[in-house]
């Protein structure tokens, strides 16, 4: 079928297989930050935004994204890099495979929740799994990042 999907501001007017998932569409067009982890809606690794809302691209039909705006990590790379520095400072990553999905969920959470409590943070991010770490480094990085609010200085939305 024919779809028009805007990814990070760029319009793609394409023919796609009817059963293609958004994850496959994005990777096909070079958005390789979007990764397949479980492919069963369990791990959060494939998180992207559709119309600003975080969704699992492994379970989101590409056809449904017709006419919609999709954002991947590449589309928010400055803010992602800024948060990434906090992760590095806290030694929060081991293999780093979970980071693209985790960062997309963190940046979405920042937009959705004002001054979230620890409980709200862990509830929001509970679906983004990390197999290597015990989440302690990510939690420290998050706290420091939410405290410093670097996006205010860096002029991000």
């Amino acid at each position, binding site marked *: 079928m024919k779809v028009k999907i805007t990814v990070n501001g760029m319009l793609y007017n394409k023919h796609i297989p009817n059963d293609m998932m958004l994850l496959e569409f994005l990777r096909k067009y070079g958005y390789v930050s979007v990764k397949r982890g479980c492919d069963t809606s369990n791990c959060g690794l494939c998180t992207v935004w559709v119309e600003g809302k975080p969704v699992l691209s492994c*379970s*989101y039909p590409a056809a449904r994204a017709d006419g919609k705006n999709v954002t991947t990590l590449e589309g928010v790379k400055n803010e992602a890099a800024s948060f990434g520095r906090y992760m590095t400072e806290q030694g929060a990553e081991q293999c780093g495979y979970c980071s693209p*999905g985790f960062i997309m969920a963190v940046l979405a959470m920042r937009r959705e929740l004002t001054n979230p409590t620890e409980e709200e943070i862990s509830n929001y991010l509970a*679906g983004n799994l990390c197999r290597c770490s015990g989440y302690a480094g990510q939690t420290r990085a998050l706290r420091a990042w939410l405290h410093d609010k670097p996006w205010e200085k860096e002029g991000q939305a």
Partner: protein
Amino acid sequence: MYTIKSYVFPESLEEADELLRRDCRSSAILGGCCWLKMGHRRIRWAIDLTRLGLDQIEVKDGWLELGASVTLHQLETHPDVTSRFDGILGESVSHIVGVPFRNCATVGGSVFSRFGFSDLTCALLALDATVVLYRGGEVPLAQFMATPISFDDILLKVRIRDDGRRAAYQSARRSSTDFPTMAVAVSCLDGRWTVSVGARPARAVRSEQAARCLNDGLGAAAAGQAAAEELTYGTDLRAGADYRRKLAAVLVRRAAEQCMEENKG
């Protein structure tokens, strides 16, 4: 993964129904697709409801109405839902995977599927919800839950009487985002109680005996014991039947106590 021959956005419910009727076995209504995509169905007509405006949450004529395409995350964030029934609808879904998942999975897919493990149907059952089907009309959820699944109708919305009842939800999970090992919801309106027990692991059902204990003022512990004795419990990889029976007694007691506290407040 499923395969899809034709992917359609019907422009009306009549069209969606007509596509479904062409061959119920090879057509599929698409909800959030989180569950559907894990199967291996060869779908002839994939019927996407997302352009039919069924993603609305409305309060009208004394009812709270949840459209089939409302996502689980909307139940956690929409003020018309969070401000009612002590927020149990949002609470019941808040342990399901994570927010990106709950932005996909829908009320329609969750309720129509009548999963035994469903947190949402357990909560809705305690609120005396009804489901509105395109062909089948409006039926009580309790009746709907007791019927076998046949994929020949479209769930349009779920309705709950906006009667101000107090409610509480409890679940036990082996790890925080796992399927529930046991789920319990209770509600109380003018001293009349409703108790629902799910993930037994069979579908959620009401415990009339537990409700009677609470109506008669016998206390939360007696209600828990009654639910443990009245209902059947089974064994799966999460828990044995005996353990579930004990869990039911504890969770019903806790939910009833929580609801009593709310009633005082």
